[in-house]
């Protein structure tokens, strides 16, 4: 069989790219190693009728262009807007609750600190303005500062937007981008709980504590596309990330994409510097004019294509990509929803347990020295509150990210392995949650723990890192996946990359697939 494009992997980015390419009339095959479409994004059953997203905490920010272009609403996609967006239980004083209504958030902060409440709105507005700039950056290929001048032309518009912030906000943006979240938050607020909660959000995707430079950028990255002040929340899809995958698969099929599961890729055949063949584990060979891989830059190029065709410097750069998942994901099936002290309404959005910035930093210290955090930072969601379809009548599912777990810098995780280590960490996480939700412990029907090592062996995520590369300053933009190769092409002709490991990185969904498809299209049309 021969296709114009074979897409490796069936996560959201790969499906978006496949649908975009098929929509232009090219023949496209998507191959998925697992039994279900979606790869790491496919939902799983914890107990019969209890569905969870195994790896991804949320669906990220859905690129509105993709939503429109693929008419996902026609393919069954329904978006929910849980409220409150973020709940932070407190040991002392009232909990912090962030709502879609900024005035309610302000009132909640006011209960803890009048000074912070007074500063909240201008802080939230400024952060949103900065996130809008990042949104613009995410919507186009990363600029190559030393590339041809004509490639920089699209960024003149971006430059105007940055200038449009006005002098104060513009220079503040430059100051904030490399700033530690610790300093940003400490300069602005006094309430430890508020700072701790936002500090916890600023280390998602990074194996660092909030004192590290670049953490303010991570906080902003996760704010892209969110309404003002809605820290910690994202697009919530009815049915979870798995349902997003189903809608994307339906859109792809509707455009003529062929989807094949249980098709494990063994090798990408390269002839005279061009990818021409995809060889499956069953020995079958599929030929293609182009191959677009969402299986991660290092795995695609080093394991599947092999380093023979690559320049040693490029191979070195691939080996330097830092994959540092750094957290465990704990899934719970619950007989009833946990009731958090002080929260009048169910916590439908995100629940964060991180009482102070120092708490987050100390949790990281443990992992830095090779131990799982004694008192982990917890980020939990109970998606069945807003979406009862995820669990049988009246019951619930809850997913908890527990930070930090030690990982090796490169090529895979070490340190914590095996069920005993995972159980110990999960016990600590549940005990911490039960301090503010006493009914939790008795409500647990089933529990499943994924350590970074599990994410690697089960889902093929190097270092257990769902972002396929740490969200560090030196691994973003034109440095992602490796310096100089941010344009989705590779040194091997006809071989392209998409997915979280490429610009604009994880938590911004659909953009990398759409942009990668444009690169493939441009080359296909150039050949035609």
């Amino acid at each position, binding site marked *: 069989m021969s296709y114009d494009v074979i897409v490796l992997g069936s996560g959201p980015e790969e499906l978006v790219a496949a649908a975009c390419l098929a929509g232009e009339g090219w023949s496209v095959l998507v191959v998925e190693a697992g039994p279900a479409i979606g790869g790491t994004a496919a939902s799983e059953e914890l107990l019969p009728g209890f569905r969870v997203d195994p790896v991804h905490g949320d669906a990220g920010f859905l690129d509105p262009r993709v939503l429109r272009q693929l008419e996902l609403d026609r393919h069954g996609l329904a978006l929910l807007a849980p409220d409150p967006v973020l709940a932070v239980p407190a040991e002392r004083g009232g909990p912090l609750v962030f709502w879609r209504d900024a005035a309610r958030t302000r009132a909640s902060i006011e209960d803890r600190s009048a000074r912070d409440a007074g500063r909240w709105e201008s802080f939230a507005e400024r952060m949103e303005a900065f996130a809008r700039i990042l949104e613009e950056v995410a919507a186009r290929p990363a600029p190559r500062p*030393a590339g041809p001048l004509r490639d920089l032309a699209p960024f003149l518009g971006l430059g105007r937007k940055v200038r449009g912030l006005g002098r104060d906000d513009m*220079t503040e943006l430059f100051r904030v981008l490399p700033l530690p979240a610790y300093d940003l938050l400490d300069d602005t607020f006094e309430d430890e709980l508020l700072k701790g909660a936002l500090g916890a959000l600023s280390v998602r995707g990074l194996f660092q504590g909030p004192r590290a430079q670049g953490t303010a950028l991570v906080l902003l990255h996760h704010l892209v596309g969110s309404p003002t002040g809605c820290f910690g929340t994202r697009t919530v899809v009815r049915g979870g990330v798995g349902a997003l995958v189903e809608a994307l698969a339906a859109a792809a099929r509707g455009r003529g994409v062929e989807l094949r599961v249980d098709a494990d890729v063994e090798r990408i055949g390269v002839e005279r510097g061009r990818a021409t063949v995809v060889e499956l584990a069953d020995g079958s060979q599929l030929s293609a004019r182009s191959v677009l891989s969402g299986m991660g830059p290092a795995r695609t190029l080093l394991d599947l294509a092999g380093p023979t065709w690559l320049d040693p410097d490029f191979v070195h750069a691939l080996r330097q990509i830092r994959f540092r998942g750094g957290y465990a994901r704990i899934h719970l099936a619950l007989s009833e929803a946990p009731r958090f002290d002080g929260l009048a309404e169910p916590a439908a959005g995100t629940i964060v347990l991180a009482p102070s910035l120092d708490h987050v930093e100390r949790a990281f210290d443990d992992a830095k020295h090779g131990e799982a955090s004694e008192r982990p930072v917890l980020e939990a969601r109970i998606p069945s509150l807003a979406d009862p379809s995820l669990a049988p009548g009246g019951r619930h599912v809850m997913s908890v990210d527990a930070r930090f777990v030690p990982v090796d810098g490169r090529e895979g995780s070490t340190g914590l392995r095996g069920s005993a280590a995972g159980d110990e960490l999960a016990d600590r996480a549940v005990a911490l949650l039960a301090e503010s939700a006493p009914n939790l412990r008795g409500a647990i029907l089933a529990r499943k723990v994924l350590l970074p090592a599990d994410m690697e062996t089960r889902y093929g995520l190097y270092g257990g890192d769902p972002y396929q590369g740490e969200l560090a300053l030196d691994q973003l933009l034109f440095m992602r996946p490796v310096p100089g190769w941010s344009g989705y092409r590779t040194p091997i002709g006809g071989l392209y990359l998409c997915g979280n490991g490429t610009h604009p990185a994880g938590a911004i969904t659909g953009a990398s697939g759409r942009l990668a498809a444009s690169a493939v299209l441009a080359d296909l049309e150039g050949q035609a």
Partner: protein
Amino acid sequence: MQIARVWDAIVIGGGHNGLVCAAYLARAGQKVLVLERRPVLGGAAVTEEIFPGFKFSVFSYVVSLLRPEIIRDLDLPGHGLHIVPLESTFNPLPDGDYLATWADPEETRRELYRHSPRDADAMQEFGRLMQRMAMAVKPLLATEPPDPASLHPRALLAMGRIGKHFRDLGEKDLHALFKLMTMSSADYLREWFESEALVAAKSASGIIGTFLGPRSPGTAYVLLHHYMGEIDGVFRAWGFARGGTGAVSESIASAARGFGAEIRTDAAAASVIVKDGRAVGVALENGDELRARTVISGLDPRRTFLELVEPVDLPSDLVAAVERFRFRGSSGKVNLALSELPDFTALPGVGPHLKGAMAIAPSVDYLERAYDDAKYGDFSRRPFMDIVIPSMIDPTMAPPGKHVMSIFVQYAPYHRNGGWDDQSREAFGDAVVDTLAEYAPNIRSAILHRQVITPADIEAVTGLSEGNIFQGELALSQLFFLRPSPAWADHRTPVRGYYQCGSGTHPGGGIMGASGRLAAKAVVADGGR
């Protein structure tokens, strides 16, 4: 009645940058006066006889970053400056081994090979890359940062020129530079080297003067900053000034005097006199008032903007920026007068290793643990130390047969829980000596006198806010056009006739002098406007 004299320029602070600024202004024909609060010149670059017969570079202790053009322009060797290169580095390790580098490259290669053949090979290429990176940054050291928010043709042109400079580096070097600007020193070095001892020894350069650990992003830049030093055109060369770092200050002062500048010690400035938005002179603490057309502050941004002038004379965004400018000093100093040389277990006896730099930085984890102590408000129980024995190079620093040892220590947080007092200062000194004694057991009995300097002491003596040796952290958010504040990074201030020349301005810390030179150029360019 005597008519009050009007100076062309008064420089507040006789630190090395203030002196460099004064020398350049005097060289340009201006009548210049330097005011120094202390009896000695040099600020943090002073040599003092702390104990009879024992002279110390009390604070700053090595020279490398002093710009070659300044040495040339001011003919500092003609004014007594003599720099002796530090030829070796020596890091004892807990397992009884050591890691060293020597003056002879071949010997260094053999030593590295002993630890890791791969690293010995990689070192050559690494050295070349760092030299290229230092060359790439070097032009910026002598460039006034443009205001990125300005649409003035001059600012746009300057930005275009900087953009072109970086594009001209080519993609490969530009990416390498971007990595250095953003990564942690440990991550960066691990891309090159596998030996833990080597990564630790090198990554320690990235934490000097910062409140960061070697695994914190941003420290690779500080590592590069320490590679920017040139001695006689050789990058990454560190040296002693004969007579201590005070001799550097003295040579600059002598050059300034040679150009006609007047320098007064024991003359503490209290405030800058501002009339109708213009600096017109300086009021001294003794009540005297001196008139000047231009006033240049060599003090750090906090003192320059929040103490010497009234905040009402400044725009509120500048005041806010300076108020949140990060100082949080993290380093201390222990100066020892010794009856005999230290005898390192890892390399016993008196050898060439004692003539170079010695460091206690056995592993990245060790350095991170030292940082952890400081993060939560205490000094490191087992600190990082950078040690030199100046009397090995310059015997005049100590009585015959005796020695002086300078130990730069991290971390000692300025904001220590419970503050600093005599008891905590001595406890800090004990932690330093105890740790050193693990590697050189004879050190305890060799100590004749001990001077322990905490960040609080650095602040009290030199005036450096929070004891920060760089007049403000060398963090990405405080560099180039953000140093010390957007729109005021060109050594000018909102007060006409008032300028800033300390290392709290671009390009920042170390005995570099570049800030002083750039400020003088700005003053001359403005021509008294």
